[in-house]
C-alpha cells in the first residue's frame, strides 16, 4: 500500500489548488492519502467544496483520506457540514 503525503499551504487561497491537485492524483493512488492541515488556519466555501469533491472521489476509489493537524475551527466546519465522518483524523 502506498501512502502519499500532501502539504497544504497555510493561506485559504492555496488550499483549493492543493486539494484539487490531490483529487487529480487520487485516481492513480492506492491506499491512503494523508493531508497535512497544520498550516491551514481557516477554510472557505471553495475549499470546502473541494474537500467534498475529494471525499467523493476517495469513496469511488476506495481510498482513505487522513487529515493531520486539523485545527479545531476547521474541524468544526467539517462537522457542521457533515463531512467529518468521511475523513479520518490524526493530530
Amino acid at each position, binding site marked *: 500500500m502506498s501512502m502519499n503525503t500532501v502539504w497544504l499551504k497555510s493561506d485559504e487561497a492555496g488550499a483549493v489548488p492543493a486539494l484539487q491537485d490531490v483529487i487529480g492524483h487520487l485516481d492513480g493512488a492506492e491506499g491512503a492519502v494523508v493531508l497535512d492541515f497544520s498550516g491551514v488556519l481557516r477554510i472557505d466555501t471553495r475549499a*470546502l467544496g473541494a474537500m467534498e469533491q475529494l471525499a467523493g472521489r476517495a469513496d469511488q476509489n476506495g481510498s482513505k483520506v487522513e487529515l493531520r493537524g486539523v485545527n479545531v*475551527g476547521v474541524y468544526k466546519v467539517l462537522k*457542521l457540514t457533515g463531512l467529518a465522518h468521511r475523513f479520518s483524523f490524526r493530530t
Partner: protein
Amino acid sequence: MTERVPSLAELSEDRVAYLEGLVSRARAAAAVFSQYTQEDVDRIVKPMVVAGMEQARYLARLAFEETKLGVMEDKAIKNMVATEFVYNYVKDKRTVGQIREFPDRNLAEVAEPIGVLFSLTPITNPTATVLFKCIMAIKTRNAVIFSPHPRAFRCCAEAVRIMYEAAVKHGAPEGVFTCLESPTLPDNAYLMRHKHIGLIDATGGPGVVKAAYSSGKPALGVGPGNTPVYLEKTADLDMAVVDILTSKTFDNGTICASEQTVVIDDEVYDLVLRKFADLDAHICNEKEAELLGRTVIDPETGFARPMAIGQKATTIAGAIGLPVKASTRLLIAPIHGVGREHPLSVEKLFPLLAVYRARSVDEALKMCIDVNHAGGIGHTAVVFSRDDEVIRKFSEVINAGRIIVNSPGSVGAIGGVYNDMVPTFSFGCGTGGGNSTTDNVNVYHYLNIKRVARRTQMHTWFRIPNQIYFNRNAVENLGQFPSRCTIIVTSPVLEQIGHVDIARRHIPPLTHIHVLVIPDAEPELKVVMQGLEALRFYKADQIVALGGGSVIDAAKIMRLKYEAPEADIDELGAPFLDIRKRIAEYPAEKSNRARLIAISTTSGTGSEVTPFAVLIDKDRGRKITLADYSLSPDVAIVDPQFVMSMPKGLTADTGIDCLTHALEAGVSVYASPYTDSHAMQAIRMVFKFLPIAYEHPDNEEARSMMHNAACIAALAFSNASVGVNHALAHALGARFGVAHGRANALMLPHVIAYNASVPSKFMPSPHQRAYVAHKKYAMVADLLRLGGDTIAEKVDRLVAAIEELLDRLAIPRSIAGLGISKEEFERAVPELAEIAFDDPSWRPTNPRMPLMSELVDLLWKAYAGRRQANGAAPSQQPAAKDGLAYVDEYSLAQK
C-alpha cells in the same frame, strides 16, 4: 376559511434538487462563517449598511411599484431605519465568542450561530424586512434562505442581491444569502421541515406564522396585531392627534403596529375629532361608518379585504363611493363595540381608524382590552395620558409586547426613533400571539447563547459572638454591661444551688433584676411566651440566660420574639437546604432591643455561642429548629465554677456531645481552616480532659478545659455545622428519649466508619471540592498520636480510641443496651430513618449524602453496638508520618 395545507408531493424532483442545492450552499456558508471573528463580522456589516442606505429609495420604489401598497417615501424611510438605526443598535454589540460577562456571578455568555435560517418576508414591509434580517444574520454569522411574499418577490430579491454583494465583497462566505426563485407554499413547507434549517423567521400573515410554528422547527413567528389606543383626557391632545395621524398614515398604515381603534374619553372626544378634521381626516357619520364596515371588511372572514391594504384614504373612499375631500388622508369611523357586529374593530392595515367614545377610564380600559383580544394580543398598544396612574393601569391590563406611551404606535414600536426600544422589523407577540417572545426581534434571537457557568466560589464565614469571657470568675464581667432592667432566665436547680445569686452579684447595682425560672427541658412554646410576657412587662433591656442548652435556647427565642413580635416561629423554623437561600427571613426590623448574655452551666451544647435554638411544639408533637446568626448571644461567659457540680453522667454525655460537634464540624463540607483549628483543638482537649473531669469531678483544670472545649467545638460547628450523627441522635432522642449526648455516643463510631468510606452518593455542594473526610479523620488520629501507617489504619485507631473513651465514661455501647427490644426497635427504624433524613443537621454539610437505606443500616449497627475494627476507611494509601501532610493535602483540595 379553510387553510390549504401544502403537499410536498406537489414538488417536482427538479424543484427538490433546487431546494436541496440552496440548503447545501447555505449550510456550507454557515459552517465557514463559524470561523469568523467579531472583527471579521463587523468589517462586513458596515458596508452592507452603507449599501442599504444608498439603495433605500431605489428599493422603496421597487417595492411600491411591485406591491402597489403604501407610500414610496415612507418605504424609503423604513429602509433607512432598517439599516442605519439597526446598525446603530448592533454596531457595538458583541455577537461572536464571549458576548457578555457577569464577573460577580461567575457567568459568561458565548454566542453560537444558529446556522441556516429560513426567512419569510411580508408584502407590507418587504425590502425593509430583508435589509434588517440580512444585517442581523451577518452580525450573528448565520446564512439565510429568503422566501419573499410572491407579490413582493422582485424587490426582495433585489434587496437580497444588494446585501449579498456588499457582504461577500467584504469577506462574507459565498452562499450566505439566497433568495428562493418563484417561491411557492410547497417550497416553504419543504424548507420549513428541512433538517438543516436551524430556525424559521417568519414575518407575515397568520397563515405563514402558523405554518412556521407548526413545522416542528424552532421558529420566530411574528404576525398580525390590532392596536388599541387609549386617548385619555389629560393627554396632550394636539401631540396625540399628530402622532396618531403620522403613524396611521405612515406607509398607508401597513405597519402591523399602527393604531386601529382609538378609545377617547368623553370629555375630549368631540374636541379630538375636530382636531383630526382640522388635519385633513374625514370624520365619518354613522351611515358612512356602516358603509365602510360592509365594504372594506369581508363579512365572511371578518378580516380586512386585501384591496384596501396599503391604499390611500382617498383611494379607498373612491372605491366604495364615499365622498371625501381630495386632501383627505385618514378616514375616522365611530364604532360602538368590538366583534363581528362591529366590523371596523379589527386590524385595518390602511388609513382607516375606528374611534370609540368612553364615558369613564374603566369603560375605556375595558374597550381597549376588547380590541386587544380581537386579534391583537401580545402585539402593540398605545396610551396617551399625562396621568401616570392611567399609564400604569393600562400597561397592567393590556397584553402587548410593546406599550407605546405618548408617541406613535407604528414608528414607536419599531424602536430607536421615539423611544429606546430595540430597532426591529419583527415584533414578538408572546404566547398570546402564538409567538415565543414578546421582544422586538434582534440579533440575540439569531443566536444560540451558551452560558458558561464557572464554579461558584462560595464565600464562607466564621461568625461568633462579639465577646466571650472564659476561665474561673469570668462571670464578674457581667459588671461591665449596664442595664436598666435585666431578666435572668434559669432553671429551678440552678436557682436552688445558688448559681443565680452568683450571677446576680455581678450585675451592676441599680439594675432592676427579675428571675424567670423555667423547666430544665427543651423549651416549649408556652414557656417562651411566658418569658416574653415578662420581658414586655418589665421592658427589659438585657437577658442573662444561666443554664444548659435548653435554658439558653429558650432565652434566644424569647429575645427573638421580644425584639420582633411579628416573627413567626413556624415560618422561621421551615426546613432549608442552604441557609443562604432558605425561604424564611429573620426579622431585620426590631421594635425592642435586649442584650443577651449566655452563661453556660454544662460543657457540651455550646449554646452560649451558637446561632441555633430548638423549641418543642407539644400541641403538634414536633420540634422546631431555628438557625440564624441573629439568635447568637451577644456575650458568652464560660466560667467553670458553674460546672463543678455537674453529675458524672451529665459530664460524660455532654462531653461526648462536645466531641461529636468537633468531629462532625471537622469533616463537614463547610469546614474551613477557621473551623478546623477550633474543631481539632476541641478534640484534643476532650481526649485529654474529659476522662479526668469524669473521674475527678473536683479537678478544676479538667472542668475548665472541658468547659472551654465545649465552647470551642461550638464555635466550629456554628460555622461548619454538624452531620448525620446529630441527625440520627435527634431521631433517637425524639423516639426513645435518649439523652442527646448519649445518643450521639451510640452513633459516633459507626458514623465515623460510614463517613470514612467512599460515599455511595456525594453531597452536591460547591463547598465539597474533594472527598477528604477519611483524611480528616486520619489527621485527627495523628493529632491524638494514635499511630497507624495507612489512612484506613488511622481511622480504625480513631474509632478504637473513641470506643475506649466511651467505655471509660461508662456510656452504654448499644441501643439494645438501653433496654429497647429488637421488635420495638424494628418497628421504629423506618420512622427513625425518616426523622433523621428530614433533620436539618446533615444538610448540606455531611461529607456523604445519606440514603435512607444507609441510615437504616447505621441505626441497626448502633443497635448491635460495638463496632469491629475492620478497615473502614477506603484508602490503603501510605500515610505520612505526621498529620501535617493531610493538612497540606486538604488545603490543596480546598484551593
